[in-house]
């Protein structure tokens, strides 16, 4: 049994303590925008925000999340895809297959929340999510665009 605050809504879920938060979000809560990619916190497809920090939910046991922790998934990032990162992603036509993009957007929006004008070096350090389609060049450009729009 766990109580989770996801996208501002409280969910009581019946799960074993060791269950990764990713699978609770996907299978119990039913939000499937957060993706499974590797299960070992290497690829970042499962990235969510917990209290504003980007976290890889596939290696985050549900028991480590407190009831008062604020979890935000891609579905709760903004109403109508209005986060500056989402708008910039649309403007640059970033996604190809799109599978990793929830995680990329969560990582990029967490970066921008902390660092209003990230340098290329800051982006290099923060954006370690894998994109097999290779959209990295557009991700970098879109983060710069979003930073300018926010300024």
């Amino acid at each position, binding site marked *: 049994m766990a109580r989770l605050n996801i996208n501002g809504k409280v969910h009581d879920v019946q799960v074993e303590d060791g269950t990764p938060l990713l699978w609770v979000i996907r299978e119990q809560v039913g939000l499937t925008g957060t993706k499974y990619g590797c299960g*070992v916190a290497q690829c970042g497809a499962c990235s969510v925000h917990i209290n504003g920090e980007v976290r890889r939910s596939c290696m985050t046991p549900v028991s480590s999340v407190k009831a008062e922790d604020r979890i935000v998934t891609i579905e709760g990032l903004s109403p109508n895809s209005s986060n500056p990162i989402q708008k910039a992603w*649309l403007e640059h036509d970033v996604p*190809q297959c799109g599978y990793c*993009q929830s995680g990329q957007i969560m990582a990029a929006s967490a970066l921008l929340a902390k660092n209003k004008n990230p340098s290329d070096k800051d982006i290099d350090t923060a954006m370690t999510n894998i994109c097999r389609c*290779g*959209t990295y060049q557009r991700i970098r450009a879109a983060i710069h665009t979003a930073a300018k729009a926010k300024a």
Partner: protein
Amino acid sequence: MKTAAKQPNLSRRKFMVATAAASGGLALGFSLPFGADLAQAQAPLAASPEVNAWVVIKPDDTVVIRIARTEMGQGTLTGIAQLVAEELECDWKKVTTEMVTPGQNLARKRVWGDMATGGSRGIRGSEVYTRAGGAAARMMLLQAAADEWKVPVGELTVSESVIRHAGSNRMTTYGKVSAAAAKIAPPDPKTIKLKPYTQWKIAGKPVKRLDTAPKLNGSKIYAIDLKFPGMLNAAVKSCEVFGGKLVSFDDAKVAKMAGVKRVVKVDDATVAVVADTWWHAKTALDALPIVWDEGEGAKASSATIAKNLESGLTSNDAFADTTIGDTMKALAAAPKKIEAVYSTPFLSHATMEPMTCTAKITADRAEAWVPTQNGDQALAALSETAGIPLDKCEVYKMDPGGGFGRRVTIPDYVHKAVNIARQFPGIHVKMIWSREEDQMHGFYRPISQARMAGAIDAQGNLQALHIRVSGQSINAFSNPAAIKDGKDVRQLQGLWKEPGDAQFGYTVPNLQIEYAMRNSHVPVGPWRGVNTNQNGIYLECFMDELAKAAGKDPVEFRRTLMQKHPKHLGVLNAVAEKSGWGRPLPAGVHRGVAVFMGYASYSAAVAEVSVSPKSEVKVHRMVIATDCGNVVNPDQIAAQTDGAVAMGLSALFFNEITIDKGRVVETNFHNYRILQLADMPKVESVLAPTHDFWGGVGEPTICVVAPAVMNAIFAATGKPVRHLPIKNQKLV
């Protein structure tokens, strides 16, 4: 951006219905209560009739363009819609798309043609009939207006879905005449004239993709995300050793674990745990005692496989696909002879979405939701495995989270999912492979080696070239019938003498190109770019070794040999110009070049690279020129070029699938490292289209990425790079 915003932002509930609706050949936009039987949703509904198989126009002028090829990120969906819309003369802002299903294609005598999406054929393989489909629909819509107004159709004009008759100053729109147009007989194909590219207004332009919006907010449903009432989840494990068999499993040990429904045998080599959730299924699978018969394959290792390949470098069993002059004699007599051996490893596709498939089987109907590059084949696999006739089967194609060739040749994951679902009749069962299962059970890019020898005369001209490729054959594994008289020319892709698809681009007076087949127990298949990757490295890196021996600039050396191959030369010249070849670079930065042909397109790359004393390589910039004949969407070609660089550099620097005790060693991204953003160079895509043919886009550019960087490293260090990946190699 405007067009992307037009995409229907389907809720999950509506999505289920939409998926089913596509099979009825109907437009989207209606809804049923969640959980309604999908079969019901396939009954004909009161929606706008189609003008023809490709085009539905609603009363509000919304245009629905039907897409048969798979969209897995490569942009084919948008590109085909551009081609149809171009001939249709419709308002691009009102264009949406829907995927047709394999069952519907079969029922309508394959009216949408081949659904397979591989070999970079999505657009070049369907451009004629998709454009003709748009043109035919336009002719029918105009005829409908002419009939209504009782004027000759030749007096009408149309632009952006608005039909006008100047003589009577009347106008109407496609939406208003589409119902009447649907009743008009289609035009004689001989009367359909397609526009020359010079008149294009939508095709050829960098319009935004039509499928972006739902990828930004989590609303896009991939196969792994599907949910159905009462659905069960399956986790699978196959024998780690290729060719091994499942002997037994002790299901009593996991029967009482949380959520477990049943443990089932899937096939000779695979077991599955089926549970209420996938996490429960996977947890129980990890705890399940399983006995395997690993078989002969367990004796194999990377060392034994490499030894077998080495034997093919000098053996007598090779066949020569190209024999010009007397290469052996010329090499023996050469004043300067250069020799080198190269090697490339097995590679996995590592699509971000691992293999997954959902199936529901009843006594007389079979359905599967499949992220496939090959819808027709998935349907056949469903029917065959379920034992249910084709006309009682349907496949709902899900846009794959990456394909790269993994989902095109053998529908192994469809067979497995259906074999599981058969044991739970009437219930949707979703099978998901773990990343480890995906890495350990792929169809890998074949391992290969090459022995190269070249003769340079006193004037620095290339007099003779001998290429011997030794390696595993894809056809031997998956399509032996394609091998004629024991000669598998496919493995020499990019070195072929025939023009048109993947031609060798140099003129050499004495030339011999050979292949010796050396197979292993490891399953192999097409991997983005297929054999152009390995052959591009062998030829183009050796060309730089020869240029250096000849004392010539690598671009000049190639130009001399390419005079009879103007399109190869064209992309070389384009990339040399745009990269600033020959101009000074910052201290420590060096250039490398490569040119190759594949999938009917010509590609050339220049890489700018620096190498530290500790052998750390930094790729600063890559300029890649492409001649794919006609350009449908330059922005999407640029995106594919980015992708080719990312995947090509991953393979060059980090990736290899090695074998120990018959099984794959690299089981997840911790030891199969994928290139990250920080490693991505600046990429410039240069289009050099000649407009006289239709070439592919998704695959052709990847084969020049690695050799251009390898040649830049050679320029920096003076030592050629001959073996991939270059991680852990001392370069300096």
